[in-house]
């Protein structure tokens, strides 16, 4: 190396980079994430993410709680779509205990789950709008999320951390008011979503901003364990609802939308398309429920499902079951089981080991966010800071699910 070249090399080595702490609390990151960025001007040279700011030790907590008290924990995983997590947990326990769920209940669950998926995707996509500078669309579609939360309220009384459903079914049948609200949503949402899409999908500014921003190839995405819309945006048509159908998804007709580049625009479009598919699934579920006689809303499993209050006061067995369930003394068989559902962000898995005791021996959550967020530092390397923000919001990283 000549003297001159040595000096140039040293110059590059000595180049001053600035260190930027993006987070833990930063208005642009929509959650508690810290990324320590090494910046060359506005280009990110290196990044390191720190997670765990809202770690609540769910796996340890779950080892000390009876089975039906774990549902509220699952609420707090992906809090943008709590019902999905709740249902995933109920189905895991039902799989372990071998509980057969009647078709009508399965379809009721499908309705709740798809509503939650719409709410989840609405938040994510509208926030992508905010991060590209389009505040209007965010405020506009949030009214539909509000409608969905009102439907949750009719179903179970809660809005955000829903705790909806019980092991063995739903805690109550949908009321007439609830059905009316679902019908109203299905009438209004397509129109609103259409307008939302008109504002963004072919918008030159939005396209320039999002196409090619934070791309990931299918191969890399698979290596990093991506699932859900983020993987499908990269072109892999993996959807748990189709691959390992649960809760009667095999009876429904729907398309799995896929992208090609795995960039922000593709992720946005995949989520957008999934909302239309979810609406179609809800419509099909309503039709199917209409054709099923009776109003059954839970399986006939008195040892797992709380009896009506009136029976508790008047019938001996009901009182015994009530006591056993409330005190967490349900008879859960020994064994290990893994159940996965397609949550808002991908495959949400519950790996449960039971030793026959009142609490799980071990419960492991496969949290899609946690697994795919580790690719983030690689995805933003060499991009601008503003693209990094956009990449994060389009990946829909939810702090609750990330940190468990």
């Amino acid at each position, binding site marked *: 190396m000549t003297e001159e070249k040595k000096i140039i090399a040293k110059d590059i080595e000595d180049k001053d980079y600035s260190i930027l702490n993006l987070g833990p609390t930063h208005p642009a990151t929509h959650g508690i994430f810290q990324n320590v960025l090494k910046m060359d001007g506005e280009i990110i040279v290196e990044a390191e993410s720190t997670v765990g700011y809202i770690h609540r030790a769910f796996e340890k907590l779950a080892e000390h709680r009876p089975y039906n008290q774990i549902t509220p924990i699952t609420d707090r995983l992906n809090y943008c779509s709590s019902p999905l997590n709740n249902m995933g947990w109920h189905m895991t326990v039902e799989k372990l205990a071998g509980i057969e769920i009647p078709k009508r209940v399965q379809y009721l669950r499908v309705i709740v789950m798809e509503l939650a998926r719409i709410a989840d995707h609405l938040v994510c996509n509208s926030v992508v709008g905010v991060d590209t500078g389009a505040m209007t669309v965010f405020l506009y579609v949030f009214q539909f999320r509000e409608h969905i939360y009102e439907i949750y309220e009719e179903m179970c009384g809660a809005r955000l951390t829903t705790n909806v459903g019980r092991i063995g079914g739903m805690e109550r049948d949908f009321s007439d008011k609830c059905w009316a609200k679902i019908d109203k949503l299905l009438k209004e949402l397509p129109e609103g979503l259409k307008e939302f899409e008109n504002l963004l999908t072919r918008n030159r500014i939005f396209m320039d901003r999002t196409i090619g921003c934070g791309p990931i190839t299918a191969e890399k995405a698979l290596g990093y364990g991506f699932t859900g819309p983020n993987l499908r945006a990269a072109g892999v048509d993996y959807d748990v609802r189709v691959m390992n159908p649960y809760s009667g998804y095999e009876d429904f007709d729907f398309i799995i939308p896929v992208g090609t580049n795995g960039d922000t625009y593709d992720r946005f479009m995949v989520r957008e398309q999934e909302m239309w598919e979810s609406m179609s699934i809800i419509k099909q579920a309503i039709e199917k429920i209409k054709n099923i006689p009776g109003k059954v809303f839970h399986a006939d499993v008195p040892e797992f499902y709380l009896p009506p209050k009136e029976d508790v006061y008047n019938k001996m067995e009901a009182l015994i079951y009530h006591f056993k369930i409330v005190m967490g003394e349900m008879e859960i068989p020994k064994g290990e*089981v*893994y159940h996965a559902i397609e949550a808002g962000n991908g495959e949400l898995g519950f790996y449960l080991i039971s030793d026959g005791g009142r609490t799980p021996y071990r419960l492991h959550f496969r949290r899609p966010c946690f697994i795919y967020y*580790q690719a983030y530092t690689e995805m933003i390397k060499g991009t601008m800071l503003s693209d990094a923000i956009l990449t994060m919001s389009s990946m829909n990283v939810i702090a609750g699910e990330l940190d*468990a």
Partner: protein
Amino acid sequence: MENLLTFVNDKLKAKFGEAIISSSQERDFPVFVVERNKIIEIISYLKEEAELGFGFLTTMCAVHFPDNTGAEFGMMYQLHNLPKNLRIRLKIFFPVSDVIVPTLTGVFPAANWMERQEYDFYGIIFKGHPNLKRILNVDDMDYFPMRKEYPLEDGTREDKNDKMFGR
């Protein structure tokens, strides 16, 4: 399902022989208990071999069995063949005195944070991991909270007496 178990078992037995300790069907999953030191070779074989093609790491987690002398810790790996939709589970067991497991990060980049999480919770050392440090808990924590001997709450607390129904 039974076919998958015997098919994979035959393949593994032919290639690794004694390293495959046992195999069984746990509900919808074929489960293989294998030798700890061979786990990476086995997983990369399962990934690379064209007929098997388990190219996706679904999840992994550690389990603690304090009463199981000589094999107090276990690791569970779940692999998925996406095109054919086949899932299998692999398990390894090892004693508390020797909690070193080879790292899977060379085969699946996704294993990076999963292994860090299990290190954080159980103190399992993944040999060769590029950045093995705590991920969810604070860095200066001096115990591994998911081990069964650590109580959920502070053991010295006296204000919560729950003798009747246990906790």
